[in-house]
């Protein structure tokens, strides 16, 4: 029996892959809905006993899919909750999910831009000064092993005391999470041009700035985009965490706190879905930008 080489994709074309994807997703949804029955059964029983009502088997199953605070919400319940809190609630109201999504998105974007700028600046510094890299890079790596997100509440409160505007308090947390993958990725990318190309630039008497602009930066782009995808995911998570200590005002993290303190399972799942959607959209946008920027340059260094 010959093994297929590992990098050959599964049999079939794109259509077959799409069908398999749909099949898997469908199976997941069905299993999930079925799982709701045992998970919510105890709650339905208690509720029926309290109301002194006898439920037939069919009614019982339907009830497990319609509890207001279920242990495991059924998929249609989550969709219903999202619909209710986006379309059926006034836009400016803090009960509207979009209001919170926008609050989180705003902070995440500001933090992302600042973090990418910092990461880029650090990478440029490290590439041009080896001593700085030898000293500072291990320090930065150690810095990342500290559970920084868990320290977020302290940083936010301290900065609030120091008088920083709210948006920037949270954005700082995002920056500390985002700059590191960007730095790593850009250091590799800025150093990636082949020595022969660097020699060629030197033979043209190119200044370091010219080498940077014309050779290093374009060569680092294929490395930047995967790093940006990681950074986007980190930005979303960091923003949510940064919103946790500020007393639950606005943003998906605040929504999580509200749902958690009040046991609102549907709110929690809807917020989770919104957060995932944000992350997916961000990564997809970066992928789009990657294809736009990188595909015209075929066969470049």
């Amino acid at each position, binding site marked *: 029996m*010959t*093994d*297929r*080489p*590992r*990098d050959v994709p*599964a049999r079939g074309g794109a259509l077959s*892959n799409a069908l*398999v*994807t749909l099949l*898997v*997703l469908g199976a*997941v949804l069905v299993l999930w809905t079925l799982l709701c029955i045992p998970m919510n059964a105890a709650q339905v029983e208690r509720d029926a006993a309290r109301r002194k009502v006898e439920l037939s088997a069919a009614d019982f199953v339907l009830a497990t899919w319609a509890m207001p605070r279920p*242990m495991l919400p059924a998929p249609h319940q989550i969709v219903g909750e999202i619909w209710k809190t986006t379309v059926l609630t006034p836009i400016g109201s803090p009960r509207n999910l979009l209001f919170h999504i926008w609050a989180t998105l705003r902070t995440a974007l500001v933090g992302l831009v600042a973090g990418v700028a910092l990461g880029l600046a650090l990478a440029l510094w490290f590439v041009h000064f080896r*001593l700085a890299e*030898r*000293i*500072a*890079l*291990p*320090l930065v790596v*150690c810095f*990342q*092993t*500290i*559970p*920084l*997100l*868990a*320290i977020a*509440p*302290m940083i936010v*409160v*301290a900065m609030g*005391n*120091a008088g920083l505007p709210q948006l920037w308090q949270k954005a700082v947390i995002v920056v500390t999470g985002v700059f590191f993958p960007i730095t790593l990725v850009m250091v590799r990318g800025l150093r990636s041009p082949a020595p022969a190309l660097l020699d060629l630039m030197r033979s043209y008497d190119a200044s370091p700035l010219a080498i940077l602009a014309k050779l290093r930066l374009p060569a680092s782009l294929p490395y930047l985009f995967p790093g940006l995808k990681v950074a986007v*995911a980190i930005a*979303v*998570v960091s923003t*949510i*965490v940064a919103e*946790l*200590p500020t007393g639950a005002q606005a943003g*998906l993290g605040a929504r*999580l*706190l509200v*749902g*958690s303190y009040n*046991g609102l*399972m549907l709110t*929690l*799942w809807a*917020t*989770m879905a919104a*957060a*995932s959607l944000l*992350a*997916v959209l961000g*990564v997809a946008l970066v992928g789009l930008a990657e294809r736009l920027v990188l595909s015209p340059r075929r066969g470049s260094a």
Partner: protein
Amino acid sequence: MKGPALSFLAGTLLVAAAIALPLGMVGDLPLSIGRTLETAAVAGFIAVLLALLAIAAFGRWRTLGALALIAAAILLAALQMQTLRSAGPQTGGPGLGALFAVAALVAFVLGSAALVAGTPLDRGGGLAPLLFFLLVLYLWELATLLYAIPRILLPAPSAIYGRIIQQWPTLQADFVQTVVRAAIPGLVLGSTAGFVLAVAVDRFARLSTAFQILGSLLAVVPILAVAPIMVLWLGFDWQSKVAVAALMTFFPMFTATGAGLRATGATETDLMQSYAASYGQTLRLVRLPIALPYIFSALKLNVPAAMVGAMIAEFFGTPIVGLGFRIASEAGRLSFDIVWAAIAVASAFSLLLYAAVGLADRLVTFWHPSHRN
């Protein structure tokens, strides 16, 4: 001879400026090292400093020079700290002398880092960052002495250390709850699950498409958004924190093991096939060793991830013990020194575990090119 002579001259000038010029103000009087300490003591210190600078600048051996620079930095730092401590609280910020002293310290550290690079003293590249870290700690302590930084906001490192000692019973209970009962079991559970599932997906190729899809679905969910749901399902205590930590560590390990198992080259696969090796034999003898560097790098990343998961899950409900809980509640009460003490404990453990995994990595995958300088 020009380079060492110039560096000796520069070092001497910096030290002279640091000693003569005022470090800060006490009331109306400028405070400087030269004015405060006994003349004999200052003269002795200056002589030793100059001798060390001379060794560093003119000495033949780089290691000796680096050690001399470090000793000079320590002496200057001790002189400065002694002067400031003996004078009492400062107001109005640092004087010129303090700035020159800081410049001298930075120059000495950079110089010793440059000298030591590549010598046996710097094995693993750890000495320069360590020196720099100590310098940062020293500057922090200095800043708290020279500026009127409110103690609640940014306490000095010595104050934090004092707090750790004082609050040790509480911090120890927190540590056990968060790390021993939640973060480590979560790390082990999640990493093992990720590893086992990746091997299963590799073995049964038919599962792979389904799992890729499921995996990418799971990967987009910010795990921390799952934390409150875990708390509602599994209760306030350590079980929900273990679940969150396990979820956070599962996916990186799953992807890394998958990538590592795919990294086996065609040559090795063909060779094992020519030996009629079974799947299990190939896995054990060839594919797992090749996958180990990937697995270890994921494990290294999983250490802080598990800590973060366990600590943040505590925001959503915990019995009144736990490092994350301690940080959040004491920050809310504005008692920042306990917050810093808890942060110090969490960070120290995280670093230690990361270093331990790094050491295991180096021992087990010593053959990998990334360990050669």
